[in-house]
């Protein structure tokens, strides 16, 4: 009986939705216009926050937490992951090659270009995916996307790009535009029993608190990854952050580096174009 009641109320709401003037989603996605609107929204919402400071997430919006953060930054907890990453980056694989051979410019100072759209494959390639592909191409076992080894590598690569503006490209290729749009869809779609989308927290309520934590603005949210979270007392890759965000809204997470997550990272990174890379970061 309860289930039928539910469906009736749902259908009523759906009917109502149709009468609302249908969203004027342009047919072909226009990333540049989206990015401009996205940025203007946050700059208008937080006029006092300097544009490049948005990459510091909650610390750009809360004074008390910023002080705690600045104090920690003197000797940050991600120091060990950074040094481990540097060492791993230099240690050759069994076949003598190193990560430097897989990446442009030897992997130094290139994090800001990831994720990029691979025209040959027709798919978005993120830094974490590229690192594991490099390992497999050189006969090494891939790392888990949510564990420390991957976080150390991406921490080091992010560190070598600190300060460089995020530079994500969406080529005028229908597949790239589709991937971008898929990421946008994921970002704004409500999920989980708590019925939140990424936007519910990071667009609608940045600066507000969920208990002890202050919500980070979506603008520049990718720039600080990977992050050392006091909550995990350990490093967190982009994949680990997306998986935990899902489970917090009681949605069953997808596999790390699945299409939706990579497209989401593609969309969100594009929104932060021009903002400096500040990874690896320390967060509550």
């Amino acid at each position, binding site marked *: 009986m309860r*289930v039928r009641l539910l469906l009736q*109320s749902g259908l009523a709401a759906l009917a109502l939705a149709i009468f609302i003037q249908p969203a004027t989603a342009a047919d072909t996605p226009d990333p540049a216009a989206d990015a401009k609107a996205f940025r203007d929204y946050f700059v208008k919402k937080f006029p006092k926050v300097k544009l490049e400071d948005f990459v510091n997430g909650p610390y750009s919006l809360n004074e008390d937490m910023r002080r705690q953060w600045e104090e920690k930054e003197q000797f940050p907890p991600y120091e060990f992951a950074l040094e481990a990453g540097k060492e791993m980056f230099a240690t050759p694989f069994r076949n003598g090659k190193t990560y430097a051979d897989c990446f442009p410019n030897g992997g130094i100072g290139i994090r800001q270009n990831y994720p990029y759209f691979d025209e040959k494959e027709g798919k978005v390639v993120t830094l974490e995916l590229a690192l594991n592909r490099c390992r497999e191409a050189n006969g090494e076992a891939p790392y888990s996307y949510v564990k420390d080894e991957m976080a150390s590598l991406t921490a080091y690569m992010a560190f070598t790009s600190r300060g460089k503006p995020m530079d994500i490209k969406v080529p005028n290729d229908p597949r790239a535009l589709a991937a971008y749009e898929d990421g946008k869809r994921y970002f704004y779609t409500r999920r989980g029993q708590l019925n939140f*989308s990424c936007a519910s927290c990071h667009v609608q309520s940045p600066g507000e608190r969920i208990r002890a934590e202050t919500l980070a603005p979506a603008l520049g949210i990718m720039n600080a990854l990977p992050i050392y979270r006091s909550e995990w007392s350990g490093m967190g890759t982009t994949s680990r952050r997306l998986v935990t965000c899902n489970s917090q809204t009681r949605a*069953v997470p997808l596999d790390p580096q699945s299409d939706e997550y990579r497209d989401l990272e593609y969309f969100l990174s594009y929104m932060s174009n021009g903002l400096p890379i500040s990874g690896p970061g320390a967060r509550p």
Partner: protein
Amino acid sequence: MRILSNGWNMTLAAVLLIAGTMPARAASEADFKAAYAAAEAAEKEASALHNQWTTTEATLAAAKKSASAGDFDAALAAAKEAEALAKASIFQATSEKERWKDAVIR
């Protein structure tokens, strides 16, 4: 501390939590099996839509646990609730198919 409010969706989810239990007739294993199968089918559909809920999974597991302990009343109730949760997650996926565009920053 402002609690995040998000309209009728929240009440929809809350209503589901207070799923009523079955009338007094003792549930048999067959009742449970049927309800469990229905719940699993709904959950499979939610999985196809990439929109499962962790609470559905937990309730399914609880149903199976009660069943193995022989408590079919509890197992049946849990299976019913799991089905309702799975159906709600399916409804969420379908209703959000277009509605997400309303939230996009323009």
